[in-house]
C-alpha cells in the first residue's frame, strides 16, 4: 500500500497529497510526518508531549491520534507520527510566562519520568584543549585567551561545586530545545514544536535556548520567562541551581578549539575572539539573571 493511502485509511482523510517528503496537505490542514525507528524514543516523545502543556494557552505538537486513538502507525519496519504544522511563527515575546510555564512542566516531567530511553551523553566544555594551542598563538591572541582560560577554570569549579551540592538530585530528561523558534503561535494558542532527537539528561540545550532568548528579547523578558518557570512549584530551587550550574560551564571557547584544529588565519581567529567576547558576556548576564531569580525565589519562599 502506498503511504498516502495508508494515511487516508488510518486518519480517515478524504484528500491527502505531499507538499514535500515530510509534509502533507489534507482537508484538515497541513500536517508534518515523522518517522521513528526506535520505539522507546517514540514512546518517550509521545509521553512528554501528552503530559506537558499549559492549557489552554500552550500545547506541545502532540501526535495526532488515528481512528483507533493510536499516536502512531507502523510503516516499513518503523513508525509514523502525524503532527499539525504551522507555516510561520508568530511573535512569542509577549508570551514569556506561558513559555516559562511550559519549560517548567517539561523540567518536572523530565525529572519524574523513568522511561528506558537512550539519552544523549552530557556535554563537557572543551576549553582545556586550548592549553596546548596557547603557546603557538600570537601574543595578542594569547593575552586574550590565557586569562579566559583562568576564568573558565573558576567557572567550571563553581559549576562543579554547585552540582556537588545536589549530587542526589536527578537531572531532567529533556527534549533538546535550543531556540525560541520552536515556539509558534496559532491564533491565541502557542504550540511548542518538539524534536525527534534523543532526549538529553540535563540543561545543556535549555541553556542555549535561554541564551538565545536573552539575545533576542533581552534581560527583562528572560526574567519574566524564568518567573513563569518558577510559577510551577514543581520546579524546585535545586533544579534551578543545576540549570545555573550548566550556564556557568564555559562553552564559549569550544568553537575556538574546533577552529584551531584546522589552522585558521589570524583574521579568522580575531573574528572568533570577538564572537567569544559577546557570547561570554551573554553567559555572564545569563548566570546573573538566573542566580538573581533563584535568590528572589528563596526570599519569596522564606518571607
Amino acid at each position: 500500500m502506498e503511504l498516502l493511502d495508508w494515511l487516508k485509511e488510518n486518519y480517515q482523510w478524504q484528500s491527502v497529497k505531499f507538499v514535500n517528503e515530510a509534509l502533507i496537505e489534507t482537508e484538515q490542514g497541513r500536517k508534518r510526518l515523522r518517522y521513528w525507528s526506535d520505539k522507546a524514543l517514540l514512546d518517550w516523545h509521545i509521553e512528554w508531549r501528552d503530559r506537558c502543556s499549559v492549557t489552554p494557552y500552550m500545547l506541545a505538537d502532540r501526535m495526532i491520534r488515528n481512528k483507533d486513538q493510536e499516536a502512531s502507525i507502523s510503516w516499513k519496519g518503523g513508525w509514523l507520527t502525524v503532527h499539525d504544522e504551522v507555516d510561520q511563527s508568530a511573535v512569542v515575546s509577549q508570551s514569556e510566562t506561558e513559555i516559562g510555564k511550559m519549560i517548567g512542566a517539561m523540567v518536572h516531567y523530565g525529572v519524574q519520568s523513568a522511561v528506558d530511553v537512550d539519552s544523549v551523553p552530557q556535554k563537557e566544555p572543551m576549553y582545556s584543549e586550548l592549553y596546548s594551542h596557547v603557546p603557538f598563538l600570537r601574543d595578542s591572541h594569547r593575552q586574550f585567551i590565557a586569562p579566559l582560560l583562568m576564568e573558565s577554570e573558576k567557572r567550571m569549579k563553581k559549576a562543579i561545586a554547585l552540582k556537588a551540592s545536589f549530587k542526589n538530585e536527578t537531572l531532567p530528561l529533556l527534549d533538546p530545545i535550543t531556540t525560541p523558534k520552536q515556539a509558534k503561535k496559532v491564533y491565541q494558542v502557542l504550540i511548542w514544536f518538539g524534536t525527534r532527537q534523543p532526549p538529553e539528561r540535563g540543561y545543556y540545550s535549555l541553556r542555549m535556548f535561554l541564551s538565545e532568548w536573552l539575545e533576542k528579547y533581552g534581560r527583562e523578558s528572560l526574567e519574566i520567562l524564568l518567573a513563569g518557570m518558577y510559577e510551577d512549584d514543581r520546579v524546585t530551587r535545586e533544579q534551578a541551581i543545576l540549570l545555573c550550574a550548566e550556564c556557568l560551564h564555559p562553552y564559549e571557547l569550544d568553537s575556538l578549539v574546533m577552529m584551531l584544529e584546522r589552522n585558521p588565519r589570524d583574521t579568522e581567529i580575531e573574528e572568533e575572539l570577538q564572537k567569544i567576547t559577546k557570547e561570554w558576556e551573554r553567559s555572564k548576564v545569563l548566570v546573573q539573571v538566573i542566580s538573581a531569580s533563584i535568590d528572589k525565589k528563596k526570599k519569596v519562599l522564606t518571607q
Partner: protein
Amino acid sequence: MTQEHPSKLSFSIEESVWLNKGQEVEEILGMSLEPEIVIEEKDLHVYIKGGLRLVGEYRPTGSAEVVDVDSESLEAQLSFRSAGDVTISDDGTGEIKHFFPIDVTIPISRIQNLDDVYVQVESFDYDLPERSCIQLTADISISGMTTQQETVEKRVEQEIEKEAAKVEEPKFGAIPTAFSFEAKKRPEVGDMTPPSPGRYPSRPFPFTPVSEESAEPVEEKTPAIGASPSTRYTRQEQEVANLSSNEPRQELETNETSNIEEVEEVEAAVAAVAVPTERVELVAEEVEEVEEETVEEVEEVEEVEEIAPAQAETKINLAPLKEMAEALVKAERPDTVDDEKEQVAPPREENALYLTSMLSKGEEKFSKWKMCIIQENESLDTIADRYDISTSQLVRMNRLQGEQIEEGQILYIPVSVES
C-alpha cells in the same frame, strides 16, 4: 650638649593582606615595598606625605571553589568577570598591590636641609601564615632631622635601651591584619619610672572600664605609643565590648612575662621603648586596627578598603582577644588580687578607659596619627588649635599628666576618619 646631630624617626608597620577566595597564595614570586613620598615645606612645618607601595606577584592556588548554595546571595557568588576584565597574567600569576599611607609633620626647625630628609625602608619581610593571608612587616625611618640640644630623646633612647636590655625582648601583639604605625617616642627619663597611683587623671566615661589583673605588679610604664586605632565594626569589636562590660571591674595590670608569652606569634612591631605595661593596651589598640583593616582585593591599587564585616569575622585571628578575655576572667576572681596590684591600679584603669572609649565612641574614630614635635613657646592649646582637636583629647591620647608640654616633646595627633 647643644651640638647638632642627626636624628630620625622610625616606624614599624605590620599589615596582613587578605586575599579573596580562589586567589589564595600557593607561592610568593616576588615582593617589593617602595616609598612614594612627597616632602614639602609649608608654614614652618615639613610635611612628609605619601606612602609605601607594595607590589607583589604570587602564584595562586588551584583550590576548589566553594559555593554556599544556602547563601542569601547566589548571584554574588556565581558572578564571573567579563572577557576584558580578567587581569591574571597569562602564566597564571596573581598580582598584589597595596598602599600604606604615611603622613608625618615635622617642624622646620628640626630640619636643617630639606634635601637631607629621606624616607627609607630599613627592613621588609613577609610571611604566609595561611594561604589566604600575606603578612608584611617593615621598618621605616625618616632621616635628616637634627636636634638642637641634647634632646630628651637621645637620653631616653639610651635609657630605654638599658631598660630594654633588662627586660625580655618584648613581643607585641601583632594580631594578623594589624597595621601598627608607630614612632619611637622618646619620653622623658622620668616617664620610665613606675607611675604612682592616680598619676593619670581619671575622668568620667560613658563606658564601663575594663579591668584586668596579672600575677605580678607593674614594674614600668611608658607613655602611650602611637598606634593606629580604628573604627570598623567587626567581631573583635563585639568581643572587646563584651569584655569591657564585665563587672565588677578590677585594676588592669599586666605582667610583662605571662601576657607576652601568651601572645605568641607576634612581631616586635613596637619599638624598644615599649615596656610590658603597655602591652595589653597595645594589643587592644591593635585590635582596633584589626577592625580598621581591610580585606585587600588583588585588583585593588590605591586605598585601603573597608572590610566587609562578614569577611572580617571569618578571617581575623581572635587569639589575642581570647587571651585578654582569660585575663579578664582572672581579674574577676577577687582572691587573686593582692594589695600591691591594687596600688598600681589607677593608671591601668586609664588605659582601660582608653580602650573602651576607642572601641565604642563614635567621635573618636581615628585612622592614623600625626606626630608633632613641640617647639619653643608652643602650648597644648596651640597644638590643639592647629590640628583642630580638643586639648583633652591630646591629654588623653598622649597620656599627659596635665596640660604642660615641653619643647622637643612629641605629641601624637589622632586624625579622625571623618576628617
